């Protein structure tokens, strides 16, 4: 074998092994000195701390593993909210940037330049410590539309109280499945006979009709629970009933979606601009209507450019949601890598679990993206 090929590899391997050996030896010595043994057994111990906001029931008597779940669910919650709003804002702004209206284009450009050039952490702080602190106290709040209460203590929205919720969900699932079948059928028909089926209106109809039927005949019943003000003490008020969105969640979701939307807007713009003009002209020349041009020619090609970087932005948003720790929103980093670490002192185990969680998330998404890219790649002959 060629020594020139072996030597560098051996050297790299040696250096890596040396560094790892050095680290793990020190870790062992340090842990021995502090009297802790390495292991994940602490996960089942009682956690004895409380979390301000959690989607599942949690108090001090639950285990550290449940604390991990609480943090993970909160991270997922804020990421999903952020992704939904970032997509909506991003697509609107991205299209606005392509507008031939000078004012709209400039407004969108100013928005993008402004929000993408300010650190996300600063934006989170701004919303949390400056903007939301200017909201009124619960007792002074004017309701929005009579049922929403935006106060300094959080956003109180009415909640639905369901009877037979499962039947309602089944009806929606049934609608979705039939829509999938109709789409397949419509595509076949289009390929065989060249006749287009109005899939969109049928889908919307199904999605409306089936749930309504479930209300009429399935015994599904929903009532709305409106938040009602309640006095806690001399000057302390709060709202009871309904759902409370804490200000941490609101400011985090606001900052994340406004920040990420700027990047998504740029992706959308690049995608639509990336479709060559000849494509549109060719489509128009074979007699497609403008709507059909957009739906059948421009969008499929633009999406091919838009989706990969946008998924990357979703991933960034999820990772950025870890900034929650700065404003005490109980996400994975704060609950697990913060409070749980302080209590147990198991730095290596906890930081490694936290990192592995994020790592597996991003690796699975990048595997999915590779698969997707292969699937949609233009197959040239």
């Amino acid at each position, binding site marked *: 074998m060629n020594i020139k090929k072996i030597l560098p590899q051996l050297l790299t391997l040696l250096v890596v092994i040396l560094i790892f050996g050095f680290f793990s030896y020190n870790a062992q010595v340090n842990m021995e000195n502090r009297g802790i043994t390495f292991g994940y057994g602490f996960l089942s111990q009682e956690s004895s701390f409380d979390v301000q906001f959690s989607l599942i029931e949690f108090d001090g008597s639950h285990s550290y593993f449940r604390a991990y779940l609480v943090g993970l669910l909160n991270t997922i919650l804020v990421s999903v909210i952020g992704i939904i709003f970032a997509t909506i804002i991003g697509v609107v702004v991205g299209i606005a940037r392509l507008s031939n209206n000078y004012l709209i284009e400039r407004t969108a450009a100013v928005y993008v330049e402004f929000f993408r050039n300010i650190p996300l952490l600063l*934006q989170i702080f701004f919303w949390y410590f400056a903007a939301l602190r200017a909201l009124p106290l619960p007792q002074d709040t004017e309701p929005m539309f009579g049922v929403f209460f935006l106060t300094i203590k959080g956003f109180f929205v009415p909640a639905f109280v369901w009877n037979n919720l499962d039947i309602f969900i089944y009806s929606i699932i049934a609608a979705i499945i039939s829509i999938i079948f109709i789409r397949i059928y419509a595509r076949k028909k289009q390929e065989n006979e060249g006749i287009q089926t109005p899939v969109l209106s049928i889908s919307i109809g199904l999605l409306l009709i089936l749930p309504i039927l479930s209300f009429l005949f399935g015994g599904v019943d929903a009532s709305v629970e409106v938040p009602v003000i309640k006095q806690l003490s001399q000057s302390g008020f709060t709202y009871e009933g309904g759902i409370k969105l804490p200000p941490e969640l609101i400011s985090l979701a606001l900052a994340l979606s406004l920040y990420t939307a700027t990047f998504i807007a740029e992706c959308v713009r690049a995608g639509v601009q990336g479709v060559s003009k000849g494509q549109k002209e060719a489509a128009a020349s074979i007699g497609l209507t403008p709507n059909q041009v957009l739906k059948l020619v421009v969008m499929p090609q633009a999406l091919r450019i838009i989706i990969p970087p946008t998924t990357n932005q979703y991933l960034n948003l999820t990772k950025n949601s870890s900034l929650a720790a700065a404003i005490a929103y109980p996400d994975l980093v704060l609950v697990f890598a913060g409070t749980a670490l302080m209590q147990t002192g198991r730095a290596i185990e906890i930081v490694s679990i936290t990192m592995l969680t994020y790592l597996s998330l991003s690796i699975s998404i990048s595997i999915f993206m590779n698969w997707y890219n292969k699937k949609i790649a233009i197959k040239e002959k």
Partner: protein
Amino acid sequence: MMNKLNFLQPDKNNLNTYLYTGVILVSLSIFIVFLNSFFNKDIISFLPGSISFFLPLILGFIGLHLIRIDYSGLKFLDRVNKNINTNNFNAFLSLLIVFVIIKSLPPLLSWFILDANIAGDSKDVCTGSGACWTYIKIWFNRFMYGMYPNAEQWRINLSFIALASLGTIGFFATEKFKKYLTLYYVVVYPVIAFFFIFFFISGGPIFFDFSYGIIAAVISVIIGFFIPSKFKMYYFIIVPITLYILLKYVFFYEELIELGKLEALEWVETGAWGGLSLTFIVSFFCLIFCFPIGLFLSLGRRSDFPVIKYFSIGMIEFWRGVPLITVLFMSSVMFPMFLPEDMFIDKLVRVIIAISLFEAAYVAEVIRGGLQALPRGQYDAAKSLGMGYWKMHILVILPQALKLVIPGIANTFLALVKDTPLIFVVGLLEIVGMLNLAKTNPEWLGFAMEGYVFASVLFFIICYAMSKYSYNLEQKYKTER
């Protein structure tokens, strides 16, 4: 000849009629909103509630509809129609934007300037409803320098001025020295910057610790002349490090360091550094370190050697997969567990290493994009000229690849600057951290907004300038392919 007026379809024949009516309507609507917003006078308040609210919009909409005449022959009118008034929907949106701007100007103006206070030096002067810039004025020093002693701040200023002027040398270099510029910026300048920050801003009696490094470097360079060029690469990695360790731990002893102490400047520990200057220091060093690391990782990822390849892939995917905040957590709580008990690495150094490794992974992926975009012919051509791996990359591949990825690298650098506030996790307070500290000062409660607006403007200026500069760079190095 007078044509029939059809207000639903304005045409060119009655241009003046349409134009005057339209312009009057539009100006009237803007005038109403203007009066309402700037002078708080509602001249249409005699109308019932919702109509008086929507009237300006309706008037303006009709006006814009009337002046929408194709090929009117008036240059200005055509321009307006083409840019903001192409159809009803666009006209509506344009009006909305104009109204929102007019409406939001007075409150913004009064908050920022008219009702704001800047005189005086205590909280008491801030009586107006506007911003309290006095707060920024009093705390300005802290926002810029953190807890750095006031009397010593000239050291930071001087270092930054010196480094900035040394950084601009490239613009003045004559043709003769142009070829050394890369060497200067990649090797000499970072070393100078490091010495400035280490000996000037930190100002510690640490001189002799470094003398080991210098001696080791000199000795290894001298021996280096006698080593066959085949092994030079490995030689220059291994020997200086070994020599350094030997000199420091075997031949010399800690006591000898005491002899060489220079007590010229007061030592300021890194915990006291802060404010915007710390933002600059951290981003500056991370910029310098992350680029070469990223470059090597991207080359390693495309290497033929499996060990190096998978090591690079592992590094890149690991750092890209985790949020920076957990990396910083790791550097502050987990990393000390991996070091011997008596070994202590400064907080700032740990943070700089962590951020550099983190951003290097992103830089590596960007550069890989550029490497992949190069046609295979470039590699083949370089090889057919008999170039080795390094020669091929330095002379042929990298100059082209890096040119391609200027925007991507600039974006990564921007992300880096925007990520620096995260170092609050390890307790270092750069400008955003200082803001949060100042906000909780009992003497100055309630001025969070001013602080965040101030920092936002600062960051916007820095980042916007950077992105514009990268755009210029991209245009400058753009070559037709």
